[in-house]
């Protein structure tokens, strides 16, 4: 079943004036619209107006020299933790959406595992109202599947959907009991909206803190086996098929999981999935350092798993990239590995990390990466950004040659627990336009520096 489409967008942002912009001579790349070539691009009245040669600038438009830059549709991240309400010291809607814009994103979806959990209409409505004041880019909110994310009783999903929940998830935790998930998927007929799943069998992951493998054996730390994720995907795919329901699998980490999704897709399950930049770029070898900047759930897995994720991303078994941006306070991460909380930030480094690790060495083609980074809203029935004329102006300007060090100039996010902190990157976001307005501009990036 395809969930019913909602007329009203579940995305909110502070009102920002659309800017008319002309980008001259950038490589305009949008694989979905079959665009790839050096062109001029005109954004007018919040839309992509024209793409062509030597286009005249509308009156009052900002003119940007795109020489050497690549203009792509802006990215969409379906998996962000904004920590609001509850831990505004770690992130709030303003800082999180600023970080997202700096990473080239024009829309994000926030997870409901806040304090309190987004499990009723009043919390959701308050968040949406706050986003309309503070969000720099359109932001949607997922609501919990079960009350308090306790896995026991369904939330008022129909009302939450009515009030604009972008989807449902108990992310951070699995829906452990098959019967509860079945009920939620039955209820999807009424509520619509996809159910996103954090897949983990708690009886297998137990008190694990990292991938179960050679490194965990050496370090003497309890492991989280790959099968704790893949067996749940297989289970939930069968339930979804049986109930003719749609599910989205969050943050795939293991080869077995990619295979489980492939099998489900082949069997006709309405299933989509995402993978994170850290799982695509790093392995459990990084944990040897016992640096808590590499602790997250699901954990970094082995090189073979990483290769399976890359292949899945290339071939399309994995539909989109999602950062699972998870800010944590510094003192929380300055602890022994076993006691530190799980999660790393990733909005500001997503494109750079994947470009550096996969595109530069020739492992993944740039157009494929752009497709996967823009596709994050599709599983939730959201608009997929494109540069096709007439589309809403959601555009990111990339400098593929820029070299920089992560964290050298600090972060837009309130937290600094980035898995790529200190790493050298090739490629960065120079500018982001979301819903027609300039949402991010790199500080050193000259404005309108086109010789007359």
């Amino acid at each position, binding site marked *: 079943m395809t969930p019913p489409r909602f007329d009203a967008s579940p995305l909110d942002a502070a009102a920002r004036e659309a800017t008319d912009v002309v980008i001259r001579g950038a490589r305009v790349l949008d694989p979905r619209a079959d665009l790839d070539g050096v062109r001029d691009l005109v954004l007018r009245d919040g839309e992509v107006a024209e793409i062509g040669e030597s286009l005249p600038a509308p009156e009052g438009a900002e003119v940007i020299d795109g020489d050497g830059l690549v203009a792509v549709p802006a990215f969409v991240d379906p998996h962000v933790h904004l920590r609001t309400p509850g831990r505004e010291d770690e992130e709030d809607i303003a800082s999180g959406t600023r970080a997202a814009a700096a990473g080239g994103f024009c829309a994000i979806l926030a997870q409901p595992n806040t304090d309190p959990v987004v499990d009723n209409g009043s919390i959701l409505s308050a968040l949406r109202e706050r986003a309309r004041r503070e969000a720099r880019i359109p932001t949607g909110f997922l609501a919990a599947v079960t009350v308090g994310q306790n896995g026991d009783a369904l939330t008022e999903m129909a009302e939450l959907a009515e009030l604009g929940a972008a989807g449902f998830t108990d992310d951070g935790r699995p829906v452990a009991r098959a019967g509860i998930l079945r009920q939620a998927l039955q209820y999807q007929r009424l509520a619509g909206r996809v159910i996103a799943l954090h897949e983990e069998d708690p009886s297998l992951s137990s008190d694990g803190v990292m991938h*179960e493998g050679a490194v*965990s054996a*050496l370090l003497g*730390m309890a492991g989280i086996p790959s099968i704790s994720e893949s067996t749940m995907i297989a289970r939930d795919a069968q339930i979804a098929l049986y109930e003719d329901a749609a599910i989205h699998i969050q943050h795939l980490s293991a080869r077995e999981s990619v295979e489980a999704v492939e099998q489900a897709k082949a069997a006709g399950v309405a299933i989509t999935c995402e993978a994170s930049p850290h799982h695509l770029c790093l392995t459990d070898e990084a944990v040897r350092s*016992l640096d808590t900047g590499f602790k997250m759930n699901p954990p970094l897995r082995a090189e073979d798993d990483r290769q399976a994720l890359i292949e899945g991303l290339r071939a399309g078994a994995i539909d989109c990239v999602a950062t699972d941006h998870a800010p944590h306070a510094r*003192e929380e991460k*300055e*602890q*022994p590995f*076993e006691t530190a909380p799980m999660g790393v930030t990733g909005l500001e480094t997503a494109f750079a990390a994947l470009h550096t690790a996969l595109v530069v060495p020739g492992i993944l083609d740039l157009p494929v990466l752009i497709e996967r980074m823009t596709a994050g809203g599709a599983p939730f029935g959201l608009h997929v950004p494109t540069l096709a004329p007439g589309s809403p102006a959601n555009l990111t300007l990339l400098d593929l040659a820029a070299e920089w060090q992560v964290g050298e100039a600090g972060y837009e996010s309130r937290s600094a627990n980035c898995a790529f902190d200190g790493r050298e990157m090739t490629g960065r976001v120079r500018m982001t336009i979301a819903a027609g307005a300039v949402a991010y501009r790199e500080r050193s990036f000259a404005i309108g520096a086109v010789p007359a």
Partner: protein
Amino acid sequence: MRKNLISIDDLTREDIDRILERAASFAEVSGREIKKVPTLRGRTVINLFYEASTRTSSSFELAAKRLSADLVSIKSAGSAVDKGESLKDTVLTLSAYDPAAVVIRSPYAGAAGLVARWTAASVINAGDGKHEHPTQALLDVYTLWRRIGSLEGRKIWIVGDVLHSRVARSCVLAFDRMGAEVTVCGPPTLIPRHFDELGCRLAYSLDDIGSADVIYALRMQHERMTGAYVPSLREYAANYQIDGRRLGAGQLLMHPGPVNRGVELASEVIDSPQALITQQVESGVVVRMAVLYELLAGSGAPTPVAEERAPEPMGAA
């Protein structure tokens, strides 16, 4: 040698040989009536123990005292640690006393490595979670070396709860580095996947235990029974207990202590002449003296200071 001893991996075979020789020279001193040497006079050693420990903490204390260091021993109960101070703040506070070495025992893997980031002192890992316990492995190597000489080609079986044992990890690395052939044996539920990648062979039964020169039994912790790792201690003992039938006349027996009599070891083997268990405890002091010496005095002699009365240990239980 490096500045810290966090893992056996920090040591080359030559480093270990040097520690063995140094420990042997301290063993001579220990035979004298006055067992103290002035090597670390005027320098401070801090013992920071976040976990109960008898033999490790007492032997580190004795080792530091016999080297004439000033000693501060802190146990987690009753200290600032108990009041919610973070490990980082505790280490920063103690570092203000300008210690030469911090000896740390923690229930968490990597704690010693973290401490090393926050202090200028040499850091010695006295056990971090289920990760490593390098000085235990060194004293085991020393005990064997005194008894049988080189470990090259010796067959050593480590038997028991490997999953939860930091001793097993450090011993596999140390025995392997010294040229021994190590086999790790225990219930499949208590041996982590991929453990052989540490440089050992895996076995799930004692059928071939006769081939071992040395049997090293691990402590079977009662609290592990709740995790359903083995169905019962009785079944564990039936399959893995080292008793008079299983311990051959030519085989040596080791155990890091404290022993659960009747579980991993039968009483008759503990009291047998092949058992090196008391020698292991004896070795603890001289090997820890040697480690302190190599880390603190090995490179660049300490500045001598006038003899003074040592202050009373702070926070000593």
